[in-house]
């Protein structure tokens, strides 16, 4: 009985429209993993096409694939295929769509990639301006001298 019920709800398809116009037909139970989409559906029950204006088709495809396949093994291999740019955009997408599992996975992946890097590299990656005064920065560099050893060259 439960099986029939879930089949009935999962057979309903939804269309997601990415920012560049690419359309994705997904099953309702997949779409519901995106809490933002879930909220949209709750508001407008008979909607069929949902606009996702902040996510490119390329990334939405990856997100949908992740939701379908996620398990420990898949997650471990998942992040290896993407460069830093894509990882960040995927993280923004996961954040916007409110998918906590994917967010966790991506945060871990990005952390692993920057772990051994220099502060300059991290500033570039995150597009951050240094708001320390030169004195403050020098003081921190001195205080945490040990943390600067063995760092990857940029």
């Amino acid at each position, binding site marked *: 009985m439960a099986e029939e019920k879930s089949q009935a709800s999962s057979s309903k398809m939804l269309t997601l429209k990415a920012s560049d116009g690419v359309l994705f037909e997904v099953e309702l139970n997949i779409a519901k993993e995106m809490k933002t989409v879930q*909220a949209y559906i709750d*508001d407008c029950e008979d909607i069929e096409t949902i606009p996702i204006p902040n996510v490119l088709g390329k990334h939405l495809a990856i997100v949908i694939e992740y939701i379908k396949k996620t398990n420990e093994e898949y997650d471990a291999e998942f992040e290896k295929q993407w460069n830093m740019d894509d990882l960040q955009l995927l993280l923004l997408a996961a954040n916007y769509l409110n998918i906590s599992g994917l967010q966790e996975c991506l945060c871990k992946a990005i*952390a692993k990639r920057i772990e051994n890097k220099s502060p300059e590299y991290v500033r570039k990656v995150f597009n951050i301006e240094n708001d320390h005064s030169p004195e403050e920065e020098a003081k*921190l560099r001195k205080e*945490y001298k*040990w943390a600067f050893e063995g760092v990857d060259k940029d």
Partner: protein
Amino acid sequence: MATPTTNVKKMKMVSSNSNYIPDHLSFSILSKLPVKSLKRFSIVRKSWSLLIQNPNFINIFRNNLISNSHPLYGGDGDVSLVLNQFVGTYDWNIYLISGKKFEKKVKLDLPLPFHLPQVGVTPIRVVDSAINGILCIYDCDGVHTTTVLWNPATEEKIVIPPGHAEFQSEFMTQIFPHGFGYDRVGDDYKIIQHVNYYTIDDENHLLHLEDVMPDPFWEIFSLRSNSWRKIDFDMPTIYSIFNSAVYFNGMCHWLGESDTLLVSFKLCNEVYFVTPLPLEDTQYDDDFVVSLTVLNESVAIITNWKNTTSFQISILGEFGVEESWIRLFDVELLSTIERLIGAGEKGNIFFRRDDGELVCFDLTTGLIEEIGIKGERCWCQIAIYKKNPHLIGDKQAISFPANA
């Protein structure tokens, strides 16, 4: 047709700079970094330098540490505990314990060299941690006689040949295994031990007399070559044999010099680091207990004053750097801790309660679970264990993740 609501309005274009990561996401990323990286990145911008003092951030950082599985064992649930229970001088038991409430307990049959006919079992210690399902056990009854590598799942045992220690009637010989570990570079299991010679004076003190006795020394055993080799290092030796040694990531760690120094010995290249512990003056006291363990991927110490209800945990940021210890936990319990006996998976801290029961405190839930076994005094040990059905030394037997 439904009219747009606030939810729909949210779906508009948010930012034109598509790579701008908002603060809560960058903090989430930072909370997964090791201490060393966190300190280095305090230079990136002002708000990041204040993070480590932010209680919310520390909370998330802490939770990440204890909610991840032990790196040596992954998360596939086949992890259990090995408990060395001391009941009496010749009554020692090794249990394999598993289950969320530690319901499954299997008492193991100790390998033969440790049996004393009609007496029981020799006093035994498990060196460090179980590695790849292998326990390194030695008997510690005065004159050390036997060290064994033992895989309880296959019942395979390897008796380690004697090292370079000398035995003569004029003095006593003490052989003390300090570490058991896996050298990933050389694909080899190794044991490091210290040999000392002494006599006992009228006040029962141990005395090493330089002119009369050979010099104490360190030696390393390699399973591959099945032999011991002396090494000429002047490293601090273990002071208290209770929970002062742990293996992780190709290094054997132990507490030396009256539990004031952490020694970290890298097995593949025999380089070692000495890190002073972050002790306050009042803590150089026999009643202040330090236990060594590993939390997620950091070496950690659990400290407490004997017979109190609280304990603290600090993790190490960088070997050799005293300033890189970070205090992460200050826990106040309702039960009195007689003795801390180690850490298990995912934030489980084991201790002997003042009623003799061995219990587990879960750092994430704050709940205490009784194991259902009592232990005498401070001799009990606990280690994480994962069954390995292969023979010791089998190529397939090594199933470490990249950083083990």
